[in-house]
């Protein structure tokens, strides 16, 4: 984390015109894939991520099967064209780690005991990356799981906070992530139970508390967007009276 000559703030606004505690614009769409049991497409600022959920279904290979509960598999993958320099396709050290922590962020709310001997597969594909892809992936995956009809104790929302120019910021974008001093992604339930927390860089204990508060506030805002997205899918079909006549 070297000092660079980028100025992160201009008249109190960030490089993209946001205030320090402001999220990037979020766009979410549920049920975008016909073949998957549940799916969600999300845009968080420059991030474009698609999540697909399959299952519960039979476990292959068989030896992974658990007799008393369903297992959850989570695959985080970045498309080779998702970053500026072409990324070598396929799993690497980073994506293994992100798959693991993301799975562990979602697993606590899934009622795996309802589906013994089965698997719930979650696939997250990053189409375009702009810092914060793991949080975008978790947000999309939670919505896709709900869309697949999988029983969960609550939703999960994720968001990051960071530190640039000795100032805490919500939802860092690429420049702030690359040249900033810290990045702190968290995932939590709407009641504030944290299921994922990671940190890159350094924060003082005081800053850490503030940053967690900030990221939690961001998560709550994202939760409202997730909820709205799911509710709207069915309310727009509430009165399809004209469709009955269209069948003639």
């Amino acid at each position, binding site marked *: 984390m070297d000092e660079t000559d980028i100025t992160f703030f201009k008249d109190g606004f960030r490089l993209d015109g946001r205030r320090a505690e402001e999220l990037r614009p979020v766009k979410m769409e549920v049920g975008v894939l016909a073949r998957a049991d549940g799916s969600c497409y999300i845009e968080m600022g420059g991030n474009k991520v698609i999540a697909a959920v399959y*299952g519960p279904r039979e476990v292959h290979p068989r030896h992974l099967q658990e007799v008393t509960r369903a297992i959850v598999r989570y695959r985080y993958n970045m498309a080779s064209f998702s970053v500026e320099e072409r990324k070598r396709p396929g799993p690497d050290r980073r994506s293994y780690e992100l798959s693991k922590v993301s799975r562990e962020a979602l697993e606590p709310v899934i009622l795996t005991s309802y589906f*013994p001997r089965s698997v719930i597969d979650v696939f997250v594909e990053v189409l375009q990356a702009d810092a914060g892809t793991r949080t975008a992936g978790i947000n999309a995956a939670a919505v896709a799981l*709900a869309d697949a*009809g999988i029983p969960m*104790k609550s*939703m999960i929302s994720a968001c990051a906070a960071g530190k640039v120019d000795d100032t805490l910021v919500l939802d860092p974008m690429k420049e702030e992530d690359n040249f900033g001093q810290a990045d702190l992604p968290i995932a939590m339930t709407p009641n504030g139970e944290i299921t994922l927390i990671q940190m890159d860089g350094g924060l003082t204990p005081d800053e850490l508390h503030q940053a967690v508060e900030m990221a939690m506030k961001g998560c709550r805002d994202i939760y409202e967007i997730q909820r709205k997205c799911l*509710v709207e899918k069915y309310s727009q079909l509430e009165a399809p009276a004209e469709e009955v006549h269209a*069948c003639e």
Partner: protein
Amino acid sequence: MDRKVVVPGDLLSEEAKRSGEGTFVKDGKVYSLLYGLANYRDRINVIPLAGKYVPAQGDNVIGIVKDITFSNWIVDINSPYDGLLHISEFPKRIESDEMSKYLRIGSSLMTKVKDVDPTMKVELTLNDRKLGLIKTGRVIEISHTRVPRLIGKGGSMISMLKKEVNCSIFVGQNGRIWINGGAEDMDLAIRTILLIEKEAHTNGLTDRIVDFLKKEKGARS
């Protein structure tokens, strides 16, 4: 009817005793487990809008034989779990080496879940008059979450449909439906069922379906 779209974790009620299907209780309050429609009656049930069929004892299902072992037919029942139909559950006594004479791989059958154990071993049976191999008619598949709506309260929707379209219909709880009748009647029945599936979450559906059938039949004659 008091209904509302809910997502997992939504608070439904402060009274723990009203917890019904698709809900859970935490600290004396009822929350939703599913993304679906909450139904407020004495108990609050959340009806899912998607999800896989999980077999339960006593369910009528339509299965397709996918393998034959020494004494079992392995039956795909549109679920994460396969059904096992033991040779002794066939209405007639048959020998192990003759199994494929009666039910071959690919055969469709109307069957019933006899028992499900905690490890999800699903035992099926054919020992009932209305059960057996499907020889004629058509089988269609809808989401199993829409089946209760297709049957209706106390079977109102399905008995109306059977009468109106003049077909025999067997509804599997796993979302597979067998229809048998005249070619045109079957077409109409299928179109009606698909319409019910699409609009299962809306109110006043039975009346709309009656209208739809009236119109369709008017157009035909």
